[in-house]
């Protein structure tokens, strides 16, 4: 596997339980890539992302994410795989029983941060990036859908991951905020990281892209795409 390869799937079949969702998936993502994942609802976008973060097992084919072999992934390794990823979940997956700061703090502590000052600084940094610098004390249910989504993005950035998986991260955002978040993700990808983003937002897609992965009819096609950045 090449040094700057982050995701490499070869002939992978994705199952939800016994049900085959996608077959013969071949995906290759390098550092610096900004990849869109498109397809109708129910076409298997989320399942593909779940495979990448170890929620669904790889039973057929070969798959690597970073240094982890998905076919040999043990339950105990899953947390460590996820630490190398920044994941923005479709339904946010915020901890509803604590405020935004404590949500971020949980992730930092769970991933081994110890120094309180460093943690506070890092939390403020990512919140500022998503434009929520003053809302750290709020409970998730006090935030709008768009704000919750931005918290989820902020949380994905905390550990400066090699790969950001985003499941419709702009689904609840207005056009202006969408653009801000996309700019943010694009910058991250240009700094030697990779972003894989499932989306329906064809308008913004034209602006930033390296290539597009399309899910349809339980298979996956990769399309190299045209114009580069802004």
């Amino acid at each position, binding site marked *: 596997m090449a040094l700057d390869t982050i995701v490499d799937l070869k002939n992978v079949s994705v199952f939800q339980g016994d049900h085959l969702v996608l077959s013969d998936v071949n995906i290759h993502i390098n550092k610096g890539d900004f990849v869109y994942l498109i397809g109708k609802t129910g076409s298997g976008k989320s399942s593909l992302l779940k495979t990448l973060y170890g929620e669904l097992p790889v039973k057929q084919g070969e798959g690597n994410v970073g240094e982890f072999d998905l076919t040999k992934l043990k339950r105990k390794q899953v947390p460590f795989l996820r*630490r190398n990823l920044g*994941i923005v979940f479709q339904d946010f*997956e*915020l901890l*509803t029983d604590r405020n935004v700061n404590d949500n971020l703090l949980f*992730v930092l502590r*769970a*991933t081994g941060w110890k120094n309180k000052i460093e943690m506070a600084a890092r939390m403020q940094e990512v919140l500022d990036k998503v434009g929520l610098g003053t809302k750290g004390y709020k*409970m998730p*249910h006090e935030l709008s859908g768009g704000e919750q989504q931005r918290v989820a993005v902020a949380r994905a950035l905390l550990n400066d991951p090699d790969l950001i998986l985003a499941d419709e991260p702009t689904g609840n955002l207005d056009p202006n905020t969408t653009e801000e978040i996309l700019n943010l993700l694009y910058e991250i990808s240009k700094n030697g990281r990779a972003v894989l983003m499932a989306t329906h937002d064809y308008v913004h897609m034209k602006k930033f892209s390296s290539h597009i992965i399309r899910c349809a009819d339980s298979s996956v096609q990769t399309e190299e795409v045209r114009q580069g950045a802004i």
Partner: protein
Amino acid sequence: MAASPDKYARKRARSSAISTVIGISLVLFMLGILSVLVLNARKLSDTVKENIQIQVFLDEDVKEADVIRLKKEIDAETFTRSTTYVSKEEAAKQLTEDLGEDFISFLGYNPLQAAIDLRLNADYAHPDSIENIVEGIENREAVAEVVYSPNLIKQINQNVNKIGLVLLGFSALLLLIAIALINNTIRLTIYSKRFIIRSMQLVGATRGFIQRPFIFAGIMQGLYASFIAILLILGVLYAVRMEIPEFFEFTDILMFVKLFGLVALLGIIISGLSTLFAVRRYLRMDARKIY
């Protein structure tokens, strides 16, 4: 305005924690009261057994020195709790008092024998061992006859055994109920947090890291609950003592240490283990089964 829903959520979380603690403490209270009964039943039976009297009648012409020697010998035995020497004259005096009539002047002589009243340690107050003890004493010098009531001893033993068995069965049953109830209460609490546990897993927290605060909270819950239970038990014991002072002694500190240690230990173990199992259930659960 912004603070009020926050406050409400916290209040709700706290009230559910409080009702869990109260639930656990009531169960522990029941267990504690039963333990008091068990501990006291043993003491009560011991008291009854230790009051069983065995009379060792002495030979008519026994010398004072021999009596003292015999009493010392019996005192030195492990089965002996206490001995009292009752001389001929004392026995006569006692009987005169009991009858209210001076029978010696009526008879012209004292027909009573000098005796040593022997009381046994509770552990030896069993029909078989009493038979051995009696035989041993009867074969000694200066002993004329040993008198005791085997039927009474048998009956006492049988009743004590029966009561003990019933109490033991009852305790076992109550312990099972306690574990089931506490387990259920805690599972409900954890169930309400299953999505949070799942989110924690999704952001890369290890199982141990997720479990730790839950288990700590479970143990603390057990501690609080046993504290409340101990206060309740003390209240009940105090009330009982007002009514029946001889039921037990407040000065028996060892019993209380044992009792409260037991209650606290049970509370912590049951609450902590239930939490562990409940959290593990959701940590292992397939995402699609969580709903």
